[in-house]
């Protein structure tokens, strides 16, 4: 048989369609309609499930394997395999997993992730009566809902506020924490000099430029999106004030965009080259390992980010949320594992390892938790944890690009007006595709 050009084209076309069909077919396999049964008895569970988590890295992995998974596997006979991925690769991991038809049964994500993945039908709905029975504070449940239904539960909170070196403040005659953003800017300027930057707001030790902006946005009374998530709000006046505040501080040298902590090296705050810094509760294990002197009582002071509009101070709420994949073939076991992860005893063990704050204070108190000054401060101020990312089903489309837009402004490559317009355009485009 001779191979003519037409035959060749037909064959390659057919091959392409077959490959395309296979590629697109993964979407058709999902069945989000199967409801989640949260009360299946242990004896009725079997098989295996996969857990996708960005937490429990390094030495913490042993805690996950030995103290979290092993008791569950022993009790139920369900085998749990763990797929670990960096936070900044988690989104891609989920999307490539879906494209390849291999998605974990239990997925741990962050604040702001629930609505987008729920809207796309990736997360299974969690029964409201189960969640309401846990007695969690409303402030930690806001990010778990989409369209009035629950699709995730907080497993650990990473709360952010300002840390300071008391002796550096005393040296400059500052004897009390600032009570407004103006005062904070003033104090940061006074603390700057002699190789010390007043406020480390952008080095990445406590998040990204995007998160720093969002934190300030809330401090100036703004939000990222409207209540229904269908209109951007971050480009409005509070957003302008937030960007301008950072730029003004950079003008005086009080915030230095270029100071960065090298990978695996202590942050500028740990090295005392920053007098004040955004810190997160998750920093504690790092401090214990690298700069234990900071963990002694009185070594570091903390205060909430003051308001820019004469209102309550705010705390940034990041964290790890746990969801069940709607594609899971073993939803009963996945739901049982989620319940297990939220058991106060397990939460306490996980919290001691990761340094993150459990979503409920009802955990057994241990020496490790009691001595964690950042966690204690975070728990004491939980009602102020109102600054959160997300709030729209379009957020995952916005998230990555927002970093670049904020950085473009902070590096002088775009004006505040251009930046706000870019933010609005980005959000409008993403929302229009919902």
């Amino acid at each position: 048989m001779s191979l003519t050009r037409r035959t060749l084209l037909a064959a390659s076309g057919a091959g392409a369609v077959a490959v395309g069909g296979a590629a697109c077919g993964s979407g058709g396999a999902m069945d989000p309609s199967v409801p989640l049964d949260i009360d299946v008895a242990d004896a009725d569970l079997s098989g295996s499930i996969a857990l996708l988590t960005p937490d429990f890295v390094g030495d913490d992995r042993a805690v996950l394997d030995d103290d979290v998974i092993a008791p569950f596997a022993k009790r139920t006979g369900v085998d749990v395999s763990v797929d670990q991925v960096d936070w900044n690769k988690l989104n891609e991991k989920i999307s490539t997993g879906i494209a390849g038809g291999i998605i974990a049964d239990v997925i741990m994500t962050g604040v702001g992730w629930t609505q987008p993945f729920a809207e796309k039908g990736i997360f299974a709905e969690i029964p409201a009566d189960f969640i309401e029975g846990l007695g969690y504070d409303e402030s930690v449940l806001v990010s778990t809902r989409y369209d009035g239904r629950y699709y995730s539960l907080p497993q650990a909170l990473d709360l952010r506020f300002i840390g300071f070196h008391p002796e550096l403040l005393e040296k400059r005659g500052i004897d009390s924490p600032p009570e407004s953003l103006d005062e904070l800017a003033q104090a940061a300027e006074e603390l700057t000099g002699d190789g010390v930057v007043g406020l480390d707001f952008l080095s990445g030790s406590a998040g990204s430029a995007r998160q720093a902006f969002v934190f300030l946005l809330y401090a100036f009374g703004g939000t990222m999106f409207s209540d229904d998530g269908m209109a951007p709000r971050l480009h409005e006046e509070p957003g302008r004030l937030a960007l301008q505040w950072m730029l003004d501080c950079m003008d005086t040298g009080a915030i230095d965009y270029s100071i960065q902590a090298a990978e695996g090296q202590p942050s500028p705050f740990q090295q005392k080259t920053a007098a004040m810094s955004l810190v997160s509760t998750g920093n504690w294990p790092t401090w214990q390992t690298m700069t234990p002197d900071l963990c002694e009582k009185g070594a570091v002071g903390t205060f909430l980010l003051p308001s820019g509009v004469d209102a309550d101070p705010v705390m940034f709420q990041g964290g790890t949320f746990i969801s069940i994949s709607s594609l899971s073939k073993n939803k009963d076991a996945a739901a049982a594992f989620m319940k297990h992860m939220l058991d106060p005893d397990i939460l306490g063990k996980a919290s001691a390892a990761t340094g993150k704050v459990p979503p409920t204070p009802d955990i057994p108190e241990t020496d490790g938790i009691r001595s964690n000054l950042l966690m204690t401060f975070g728990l004491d101020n939980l009602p102020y944890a109102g600054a959160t990312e997300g709030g729209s089903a379009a957020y995952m489309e916005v998230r990555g690009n927002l970093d670049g837009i904020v950085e473009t402004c902070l590096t002088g490559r775009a004006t505040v007006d251009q930046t706000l317009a870019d933010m609005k355009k980005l959000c409008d485009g993403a929302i229009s595709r919902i």
Partner: protein
Amino acid sequence: MTTTAPTASTGRTAPAASPPAPETRRRRSVRTAEKRWGLLLAAPATLHTLIWIGAPIVVAIVLSFTAYDIIHAPEFSGLENYATIFTDGLFWLSVLHNVIIAAVGIPISMFLALVFATMLNRALPGRGVFRVMIFLPHITATVAVAMIWLWIYSPSQSGLMNVVLGLVGIKPLPFLTNPDLALGSVILVTIWQGIGLKMLIYLAALQGVDEQMYEAADLDGANFVQKFFRITVPMLKPATFFILVTSLISNFQTFDLIYILTEGGPANSTSVVTYRIYQTAFQEFRVGLANAQSVILLLILVVLAFLSRRIVGGTDDD
């Protein structure tokens, strides 16, 4: 005996078809067998090209006309993705970065590769060691290369580059976190990594340059520079064209280096096309748009290959 028949045009008689002589039959049979062997030998490469290159290109073109978010089935959207690309400033900024990396990095690395190849083509002591040292970055996994350069560029005083700068009294520089320095820092890595293969190709090409031409030039009193520009460079034109085209293509395929070194930042100052496509597909879930971007990238590469052929003046023999 042979029969004849009149031809249509002339009315003259033409020799009638006769059974081929045994010798001709044998020759045809050999030719048919050769064709079969040729097709058989070419089949693996042809199949590979059709399945792994041809089919994905067709799929990409088809998907580029759809709105597809991985989760839901693709929906035909006409030219919407292409219209989006033309208003996507970040995509064109990424193209610009590729162009800058190519415009700065490729000429420098080609020049250095040619210099090294010319030097190491001579009987120098230890030239084998030098050849291996220069070629080593090419065969090292890009991920490993990126990790090494992350350490070299480390913003603290423990980074090699800043240690060296510190010796001459310069404060540590944020090579990868300052938008004004980041792209230049990335270009330096691409140059360092790219010299080895280019040098190897030039070395092979230099082996083919006839020594008698240099001897004739020596007799004419030509100096080293004259010989280099009048003999070596023209004789290496096919190799130069090959290196230029492959470098351009691989430059526009750069992904892993950016993914590990900078993730396109800061302030999108190092975003390149492939990284932007990756972001669009796997961070923003806009697979249809990402495919349209890939089609544009394919067109850019075809145009660049054509242009470089014209600029370097490649011949059919290249």
